[in-house]
C-alpha cells in the first residue's frame, strides 16, 4: 500500500536574552549546577515573576518575520504537572492567547519548487531544569540553572510530508531565528529542540491517522532519522494489522530508534488556568512598529535581491543567504572587489570549503571579508591568475600580512611583460619542433601542450590571455 506521511513539528527555541523569562538570573550556558538559580527560580515561597521585556520583543520579532498575527493581548497560563526539574510544580506558558498567532514560512523542495508551511502559533514559556542521572547512590541530581530560561515554542501545521521536508523546515526556522538574532539555535547545546508529531495514512485519504509525538531530537540529522524510523515503525504496525497508539516516544540517537516513554503514559491532565501572578500582556501598534523597524532583511528577500542586484543564479544566491553572517560576508567581499560573480564563487566554494573542512563558523574565519576582497581584486586587475590566487588564499591562512605583500614576498605576481612572455614562447617553440609541425599540420589540440609548457616555464605566473595570444601568433 502507498502511505502518505504527515508531520507537524514543535520547535522549542531558547531566546538569547541575558536573564531569565521571569527573574534576573543569568541564562549563560555551561555554568556550575544551580549557580544560576535564584529564589524565584527555586520557587521559594512568596517569590513572584516579572516578565522580561526583551523576551517579549524577541517573540514579536519572530512573529513579524513569519508574517504572523501578533497577539496584542497575550495571557500567561499555568501548566500543572509534577517533575523534579519543574520547581513550581507548574510551567508558565501561554495557552489560549499566545504572543504569536498564525503565520507561515516557505521551504524549498528537492526539485526546486517552493512550499509554504503554516505556523499555527508560537508561544512564550519557561524552560525546565535538568535531571542528571549519574548515580548518586540511586538518586538523581537536579540542576535548575536552565529553569526559567525563556523559550519560544513554535508549532507548525501538519503540512510536512516527509522527513526531508521536516529538515528543510527546521533549517529554514534555524536560519530565520539566527537572522533575527533571537537565539543562537545551537541544537547540540539544546538552544533549539524539536518534537515531531508523526502520522501516516493511505495515500489519497483525507482523514489524519493517529499520531505519535517523538521528543528529544537534537540535530538536523536526527530529525530525519527519527522521523524515518517512526514512519517505518508505523507502517509495519499498520501493515501487520495493528493500531497506532497515541503516545509520546523518545528518540534514542545511540540506537537510532524511538521508544515509548512509559513514564509519561499516565494520561496527563495539565489543568491549565491563567497565571494569577502575572497580568495580561498588552502591547500597542507603536510597540510592534518599533520592532518592525529593526527587522533585518530576511533570507527570502535577500535571495531575491542578490539575484537582481548581483545577477547571481537563484541557486548561488540561495547558498549565500543560508546564514546572515555568510550573506553579510559576501556583500563585504563584493563591496571591496566589485565583482559579484567572482565573489560568489570564492565565498561559496573556496571559503565555504575551508570553513566546512575545519568546522569553523564564518564569524571565526581566519580570512576576513576585506582580505578576500583584496585577493579577488588582484585577480580582476591581472596581478595574479585565479589559479595562483588559490595559492595566495592558502598562504593567507598562515600569514596575516596584506594580500599584496604575500604576492610580493612569494614572488607570485603575474608576468604581464610581453617581452618576457615572448621569450618564453620562443623557447617553447624552439624546443618542440615536432609538436610545432603537428600543430601546423592542423592538429589544433596540441595548442594546449604549448600553453602548459610555457606556463610551467613561468612557474604559473604568465598572464594566461597574453600567453595565448602570443602563442597563437607565433605558431601561425
Amino acid at each position, binding site marked *: 500500500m502507498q502511505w502518505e506521511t504527515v508531520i507537524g513539528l514543535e520547535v522549542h527555541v531558547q531566546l538569547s536574552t541575558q536573564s531569565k523569562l521571569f527573574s534576573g538570573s543569568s541564562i549563560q550556558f555551561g555554568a556550575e549546577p*544551580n549557580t544560576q538559580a535564584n529564589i524565584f527560580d527555586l520557587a521559594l515561597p512568596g517569590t513572584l515573576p516579572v516578565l522580561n521585556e526583551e523576551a517579549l520583543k524577541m517573540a514579536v520579532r519572530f512573529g513579524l518575520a513569519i508574517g504572523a498575527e501578533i497577539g496584542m493581548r497575550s495571557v500567561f497560563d499555568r501548566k500543572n504537572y509534577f517533575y*523534579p526539574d519543574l520547581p513550581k510544580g507548574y510551567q508558565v506558558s501561554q495557552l489560549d492567547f499566545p504572543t504569536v498567532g498564525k503565520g507561515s514560512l516557505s521551504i524549498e523542495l528537492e526539485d526546486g519548487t517552493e512550499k509554504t508551511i503554516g505556523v499555527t502559533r508560537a508561544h512564550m514559556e519557561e524552560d525546565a531544569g535538568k535531571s542528571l542521572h549519574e548515580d*548518586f547512590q540511586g538518586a538523581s541530581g537536579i540542576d535548575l540553572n536552565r529553569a526559567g530560561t525563556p523559550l519560544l515554542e513554535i508549532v507548525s501545521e501538519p503540512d510536512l510530508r516527509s522527513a526531508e521536508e521536516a529538515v528543510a523546515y527546521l533549517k529554514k526556522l534555524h536560519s530565520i531565528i539566527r537572522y533575527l538574532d533571537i537565539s543562537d539555535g545551537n541544537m547540540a547545546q539544546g538552544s533549539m529542540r524539536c518534537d515531531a508529531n508523526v502520522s501516516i495514512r493511505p495515500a489519497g485519504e483525507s482523514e489524519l491517522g493517529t499520531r505519535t509525538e517523538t521528543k528529544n531530537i537534537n540535530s538536523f540529522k536526527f530529525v530525519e532519522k527519527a522521523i524515518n524510523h517512526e514512519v517505518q515503525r508505523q507502517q509495519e504496525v499498520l501493515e501487520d494489522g495493528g493500531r497506532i497508539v497515541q503516545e509520546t516516544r*523518545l528518540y534514542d540517537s545511540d540506537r537510532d530508534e524511538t521508544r515509548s516513554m512509559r513514564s509519561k503514559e499516565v494520561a496527563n491532565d495539565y489543568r491549565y488556568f491563567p497565571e494569577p501572578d502575572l*497580568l495580561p500582556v498588552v502591547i500597542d501598534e507603536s510597540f510592534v512598529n518599533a520592532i518592525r523597524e529593526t527587522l533585518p532583511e530576511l533570507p527570502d528577500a535577500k535571495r531575491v535581491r542578490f539575484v537582481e542586484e548581483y545577477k547571481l543564479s537563484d541557486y548561488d544566491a540561495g547558498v549565500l543567504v543560508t546564514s546572515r553572517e555568510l550573506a553579510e560576508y559576501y556583500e563585504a567581499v563584493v563591496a571591496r572587489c566589485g565583482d559579484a560573480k567572482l565573489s560568489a564563487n570564492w565565498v561559496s566554494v573556496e571559503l565555504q570549503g575551508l570553513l566546512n573542512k575545519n568546522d569553523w563558523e564564518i564569524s571565526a574565519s581566519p580570512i576576513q571579508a576585506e582580505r578576500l576582497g583584496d585577493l579577488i581584486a588582484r585577480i580582476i586587475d591581472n596581478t595574479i591568475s585565479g589559479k595562483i590566487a588559490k595559492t595566495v588564499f592558502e598562504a593567507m591562512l598562515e600569514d596575516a600580512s596584506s594580500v599584496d605583500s604575500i604576492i610580493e614576498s612569494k614572488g607570485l605576481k603575474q608576468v604581464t611583460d610581453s617581452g618576457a612572455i615572448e621569450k618564453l614562447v620562443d623557447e617553447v617553440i624552439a624546443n618542440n619542433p615536432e609538436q610545432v609541425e603537428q600543430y601546423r599540420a592542423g592538429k589544433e589540440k596540441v595548442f594546449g601542450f604549448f600553453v602548459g609548457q610555457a606556463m610551467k616555464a613561468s612557474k604559473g605566473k604568465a598572464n594566461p590571455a597574453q600567453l595565448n595570444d602570443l602563442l597563437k601568433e607565433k605558431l601561425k
Partner: protein
Amino acid sequence: MALDKSEVEKIAHLARLHIDTEEAEEVAGRITDILALIDQMQSIDTATTEPLAHPLDVVQRLRADEVTEANHRDELQEIAPSAQEGLYLVPRVIE
C-alpha cells in the same frame, strides 16, 4: 456533582497526595458537600459575562533584561532536604 472514591483517588494522584483507602470515602463525602456549595453558581446565566481574572483592569509591567542575581547556591542549599555536589538529590528519575 457527587464524587466517588475512584475520582478521589485520581484527583489525589494529580495533586500528588496520598489518600488511604479508608479515608477516601470520607474525603469523597466532604468534597461532594463542597461541590454542592460551589454548584450554586450554576443557578445564574453568565453566557454574556466576561471572566474576571484580576480585580483590577491593569496590564503586565515589563522588566529590563538585566542579570541582577548573584550566585547564592551554598546558602540556598543549606535549607535543602538533600543536596550533593551542588545538585538537589531526589529518588531516581525514570524516563
